[in-house]
């Protein structure tokens, strides 16, 4: 009787295995799968277009009049968003939009320079600004149809310089006269 027990156990295991095998085999054989192409996975492109403001600089006409010399303002602004790994390794192309609004009585010149971590100038955009009231929009493309996208990838700071090409005494009749620089970026990044 004792000798029969292991035999019975082995038979049970075989029986169970056969049941499982038959069941899965039947389901598998009875089922169909239409032609699928999983290689398409490699063609999936996740490339969102992201948009946000970058830099806003505002200077009143009083500051322009109080400044000796042509240079009203010049300063580097740290801007690590572009050179951060999460962005720099994924950005494909994009556009930076600058809008300059001038309600002062002065003819001005605004210069925007993109600098790398060592303060080397990577790109320069010079925007001449006519006296009041004046508004100008300039779109600068980077990537396939524009300047090198490496400029964006390596940009670590932005230098904004404003020069007064007019006098230092006149005052605009506009309410709260000022020179304003607005900017935004729209970039396509590759997530996959």
């Amino acid at each position, binding site marked *: 009787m004792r000798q029969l027990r292991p035999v019975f156990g082995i038979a049970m295991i075989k029986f169970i295995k056969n049941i499982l095998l038959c069941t899965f085999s039947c389901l598998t054989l009875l089922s169909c*799968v*239409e032609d699928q192409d999983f290689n398409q996975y490699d063609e999936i492109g996740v490339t969102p277009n992201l948009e946000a*403001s970058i830099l806003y*600089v505002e200077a009143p006409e009083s500051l322009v009049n109080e400044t000796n010399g042509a240079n009203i303002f010049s300063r580097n602004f740290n801007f*690590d968003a572009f050179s951060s790994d999460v962005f720099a390794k994924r950005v494909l192309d994009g556009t930076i939009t600058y809008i300059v609004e001038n309600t002062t009585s002065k003819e001005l010149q605004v210069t925007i320079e993109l600098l790398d971590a060592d303060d080397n100038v990577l790109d320069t955009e010079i925007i001449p600004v006519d006296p009041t009231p004046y508004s100008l929009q300039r779109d600068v493309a980077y990537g396939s149809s524009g300047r090198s996208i490496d400029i964006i990838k390596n940009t670590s700071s932005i230098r904004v310089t404003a020069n007064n090409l007019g006098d230092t005494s006149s005052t605009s009749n506009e309410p709260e006269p000022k020179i304003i620089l607005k900017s935004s970026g729209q970039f396509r990044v590759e997530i996959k």
Partner: protein
Amino acid sequence: MRAPKLLFIVLFWVGFVAYGQNKQILYDFVEIPQSAMVNPGVDTDFQWYAGVPLLSGLSLQAGLSGVSVNDIFANDGLNINDKIRERAIYGMNPRDELSGTFQIELLSLGFRGKNPDNFYTAGMYIEGDAIGYWFQDYAILAFEGNADKLNQAFDLGQLKTRGELMNVFHLGLNKKVDNDLTIGVRGKLYSSIFDFNSTKNKGTFVTKEGVNNIYSSTVEADMQLRTSGLNGLKDAVDEGTVGSTVAKRALLGGNLGVGLDFGFTYHLNDQTVITASLLDFGLVYHSKDIKNYTLNGKATIEGIGIILPDAAADPNSDFWQDLVDDVEDFVPFEDNEDAYIAFRPTKLYGSLRYNFGERVDNRADCACGVNASSNRARAKYANSVGGQLYIINRPRGPQMALTGFYQRRFGNFMALKTTYTIDKFSYSNIGLGLSVQAGPVNIYAMADNLLSYGNLANSHYASFQLGLNIISWGKK
């Protein structure tokens, strides 16, 4: 061709544990002992049964509402990115889901007490359950971004997901109150292996025309992800101790919870039966190996803002870092180790069954059968037809399924049950269950959504159950 098919077999039958917990074929399939697991008050006539360890109850269910694998990966010559955009991103909605469950019975047994009206059940099973709703706005942000979507608020609350893996110990009593009524109750002790949930999120992300600068970006979030057991498992993977860690937690060494199942069967008359059950009315208290993450607050940014001359007062100021710090202050991403309670996904079943046709002798050791004066253990009918209702509590509210069924018994040797179910996954779900009694050995197998077998890749739902038991009716 063979590789993709093999992939699907693996996905559907082994690893892709998704979708639903409805066991509509097993429910009230009284020839199968495991029917007591979906209704503790099932009308059972066994003297005792014992499930074959690991094989007495194996169930896998998989499904996906809104889109199928075939919709995306069919070799139809269409661009896959267009298919994703049309059929998934904009073709699905936030109520569509990917969810699933599996159960593997480790131990299962039942026996009749000294009082033959009492039938006791006990056992232990592993259960995994997960659900994730389609986060449509996140997908739009990921695939298309926020550009040219001015004033479109992306709903951060669409992130709703939960999942768990646990071992369940259970002990139940099935009591025949009188000739018409059988009631049952089962107590459960949950031993959690891991848990995660993020179900009560609120918030938006929106880009608008800026007040000063060109655009303003606003994020308002009240979000939370709670986890237990995941960090410990990660450490166990690193240390190569996953097996012992899981085993320890499964055997009451992890977070614990309690729950109850209730059910009844009531014979309205000799041929008409109503049943109902409430399963997993319980909770798990998570206090060990907790890691919760929160994102709570509101911030609006318009890039770096410089207003002269005040902004030039400090030549060393780092406006970028100030901006980053402000955002982190206003919308802090934090973590904590606070204990939490997770409620189980409670299920409700109900059915109305009409029996007809020839009578099938009852196997129970009793003075019952076709000509019995007492119907303490009723003779069965060869045919049964009826309807079932199933409701499960989910993060986005209850989900319901309706089932119509027909059951045919071939003596005491074999029983077949076929079902037609409508739910959010399918309006053409036909299932088939088979129970074969070969002496004391009971084998059952059930498969769902059979019409989808014509093209598994186009299926939104698939499930499978299998079991092996030894049963005794106590007859000499």
